[in-house]
């Protein structure tokens, strides 16, 4: 009876949280079996804004890769948007990823295509009709403040503008979760603030936002939930946290 109750409670937990990690372990084969993440338990609810912080080598990027199904955990359960990533087949990965938006430190835009095409590209992948693409892309570019630069190529934009294009591309398919891996790592103070405000706005519209960063200032300023990783272990998880120094 107790076992059944436990199972039900776990199922409720999985359904309530868009990200659910239970006893997750992973080690890189080329690191002589040294674990990159150890016994990770993590729950992130729909609509939350979460910072994941830690020094280099703390396991932040590994965590993002797990959530993207770029890596598979050696043990434990990883459930994102209701998909169990531990058992997911390669053919199901594209459909799963369409529910996520991803932003990287290095923007990862298609350099030979203009701003409009970079954003439209994400819609073409999910086979949106051309008519819808022509409507959605300008709306998204307005949201990130780049409506006037839709014809520009990435190299004609500043770092901040390129990152805003990346955010527009990540959001155009209306994902439930936005994963941002060091989104301000290549930006100056002013552009960093602009991007963080944009992410906050996205979150206010109902999207769960997970930001991996080592930018102390923005974490302390925004007063959001902060999960701190150290050597592959979660050492703190604060509701309105700050960047913990060593």
């Amino acid at each position, binding site marked *: 009876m107790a076992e059944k109750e436990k199972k039900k409670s776990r199922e409720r937990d999985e359904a309530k949280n868009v990200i659910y990690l239970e006893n997750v372990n992973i080690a890189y084969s080329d690191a002589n079996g040294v674990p990159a993440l150890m016994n990770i338990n993590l729950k992130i609810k729909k609509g939350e804004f979460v910072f994941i912080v830690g020094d280099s080598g703390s396991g932040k990027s590994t965590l993002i890769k797990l959530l993207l199904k770029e890596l598979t955990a050696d043990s434990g359960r990883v459930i994102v948007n209701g998909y169990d990533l531990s058992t997911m087949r390669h053919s199901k990965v*594209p459909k799963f990823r369409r529910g996520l938006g*991803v932003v990287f430190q290095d923007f990862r835009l298609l350099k030979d295509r203009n701003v409009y095409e970079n954003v439209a590209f994400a819609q073409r992948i999910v*086979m949106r009709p051309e008519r819808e693409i022509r409507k959605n892309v300008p709306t998204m570019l307005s949201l990130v403040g780049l409506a006037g630069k839709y014809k520009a190529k990435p190299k004609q934009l500043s770092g901040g503008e390129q990152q805003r294009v990346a955010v527009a591309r990540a959001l155009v398919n209306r994902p439930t979760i936005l994963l941002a891996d060091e989104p301000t790592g290549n930006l100056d103070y002013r552009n960093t603030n602009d991007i963080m405000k944009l992410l906050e706005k996205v979150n206010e519209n109902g999207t769960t936002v997970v930001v991996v960063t080592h930018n102390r200032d923005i974490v302390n300023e925004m007063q959001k939930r902060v999960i701190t990783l150290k050597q592959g272990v979660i050492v703190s998880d604060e509701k309105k946290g700050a960047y913990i120094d060593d």
Partner: protein
Amino acid sequence: MINTFFYSLGQGVKNVFRNKWFTLASLATISACLFVFGIFVAVVINVNHIVKTVEEGVSVTVYFNEGIEQDRINQIQDLVTKRPEVYRCDFVSADEAWAEFSKKLGENAEGFTENPLADSENLQIYLNDVSKQADLVKYLESVEGIRKINKSELTANTLSGVKAVVTYVSVGMIILLLAVSIFLISNTVTIGISVRKEEINIMKYIGATDFFVRAPFVFEGIIIGLVGSLIPVIVLYVLYNAAFDFLRSNFSFLNDYVSYVSAGEVFAYLAPASIIIGVGIGFFGSFFTVRKHLHV
């Protein structure tokens, strides 16, 4: 689905122009390989044709017992004609034999009042494969009514040898050329696609299916393969015709002994073969090279 098909096709065409250096390198590699392949195939087709022409001229002559009935001769001709290695079997009457021989004798033949070749009616047997001459002769020796069999063992053996060498060398060279072509082309494609690994990564992170990622690359490969095969086919066609005319007009003394295959006949095989190889290499080269980068 149709939208995706046309989008991928459009992207494939755009990629051809976007990645100019990759396109040029791939085109040059495919064209060069198929050009060498084409020259070799054209030479092999002509050598085979010449050997076959000479082969068809080699005959076995069969003479009959004295006083043999014409019915028995007809019977033997039927039996021989039905054999699989026999290409043609002609009956030559004694009168025809003398008429032919007297042509060679010229004025010297005028002294003869009767046919000196009265018993020389014969069958001229032409083979479709001279290496089977020994089998045929063995068979003819067992046939009743045959007095003598004339054959040219040296010619038959030499031709069989030449044919075997040409076949083995040509098959070997074609396999070698194809292997080298595939190696060179897949290397070019690998380098070209590795440069665009990031583009593939971005597509995969956004949620593109393997098909969506692969299709533009495959279309691009097919286009490059098609153009890369058409260039050498056109160039070779022009060169072949020029060489054909040159040999016929400048080496006209050879025309009685050697006949060449016309460009039309050579290219009826060579053009589709080159296009299939070019498109095939473009298709499989891009298909398998992209696969390496899909597990992101």
